[in-house]
């Protein structure tokens, strides 16, 4: 739950992502992106692709099994399918981020919150996670085939001994943040929409503030590198790409 001992420069840029909206951009190796929840019960769906070769992308299974975890927090890293680290979780005041549950789709949004159209609702129209990601993917020549398993930041989903999943409603609080240090030039897709297991109505997803800073170089004793021997090897694989 404590912040990792990484040092960052003053702000490079900041952006307020309103609740319900989506965003994409490139975060270069060595830049840290802080996501700050602007209200309680936030959820931010996220996907990561190599900027250099987007066929290399975040891989849920490799991330979970390399680190023997079913949740992400400080010290964890996000693996690509090529054995490299796209980004590291260097700070986290929330404590648990869900890598399991995926995105909402138009049917699940309509079933929970009702059908909305731009014609009547203007920019208050509800956008599902799947639509949000397909739009942002399309801007980079990517599409449905590239829509892999995503992370849901700020959401805690507990799995019981029988494998049943339960979302911890109200877990994340306004002002909490998670900070990702990018280890590769990365295409980042975000959607500040409801978690797929969020049963609260009406539709009122929290916004998220984005703050980018330059991170200090990854030290030999970096907590993400030292978390497990697997991560040490993941950093070796990643550093070889940038020699």
């Amino acid at each position: 739950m404590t912040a990792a001992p990484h040092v960052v420069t003053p702000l490079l840029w900041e952006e307020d992502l309103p609740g319900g909206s989506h965003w994409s951009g490139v975060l270069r190796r060595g830049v840290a992106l802080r996501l700050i929840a602007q209200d309680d019960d936030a959820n931010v769906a996220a996907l990561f692709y190599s900027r250099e070769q987007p066929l290399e992308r975040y891989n849920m299974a490799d991330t979970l099994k390399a680190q023997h975890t079913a949740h992400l927090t400080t010290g964890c890293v996000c693996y690509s399918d090529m054995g490299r680290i796209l980004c590291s979780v260097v700070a986290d005041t929330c404590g648990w981020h869900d890598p399991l549950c995926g995105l909402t789709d138009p049917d699940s949004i309509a079933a929970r919150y009702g059908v909305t159209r731009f014609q009547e609702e203007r920019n208050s129209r509800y956008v599902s996670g799947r639509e949000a990601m397909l739009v942002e993917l399309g801007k980079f020549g990517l599409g449905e085939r590239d829509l892999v398993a995503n992370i849901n930041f700020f959401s805690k989903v507990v799995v019981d001994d029988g494998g049943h999943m339960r979302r911890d409603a109200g877990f994340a609080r306004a002002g909490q943040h998670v900070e990702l240090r990018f280890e590769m030039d990365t295409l980042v897709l975000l959607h500040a929409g409801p978690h797929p297991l969020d049963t609260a109505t009406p539709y009122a997803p929290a916004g998220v503030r984005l703050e980018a800073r330059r991170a200090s170089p990854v030290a030999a004793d970096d907590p993400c590198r030292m978390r497990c021997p697997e991560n040490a090897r993941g950093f070796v694989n990643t550093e070889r790409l940038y020699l």
Partner: protein
Amino acid sequence: MNDTVVPAGEPWMGVVRRGQLLRIVDLEGNQAVDTLFYNADDTHEHYSAQNTIQSQGRIYLTTGSVLLSNRGQPMLRIQDDTCGRHDTLGGACSSESNTVRYALEKRYMHSCRDSFLLALARRGHGLTKRDLPSNINFFMNVPVTPEGGLRFADGISAAGRHVELVALMDTLVLISNCPQLNNPCNAYNPTPIRVITRESA
């Protein structure tokens, strides 16, 4: 109809028409069977681990589980299962993830993703690495704890146990009979499986 013994470390591809049955038999016990499903008529539609577990509210698969596509459509339903639990989270081993999980020099061992890629290259269908989402591991035991831990545990399958699915759409099946030697997913001894497709009774 098809009745094939797939040796350890080999891929298998085939089509199961809507209403037909697909049975996978763990012939010698504790053999991970990495499996993906595609809509045979539009292969951009494929099995989605996250949609499936989200829909059933449970991370394990067993009798009654409906496998959903990336478009939220039902693809197959498990109608018989003498193992009891199948994995949705562990994905496929690859030469690259082997370097992370075990040692940098493990890159040169056989892996499921290599088998998947070779099968796709041989059979075509226009499928590439882009079309390899997170797969099912039949007969594999990857328990998650309430504290959020995950591990590859000793298998709960045994010789002769099987899982049988009924296709709810025309489905292209891609299997890698896992060659992994570094963890207990195959009891450190990969073994053959039997794949049977047939009309439902």
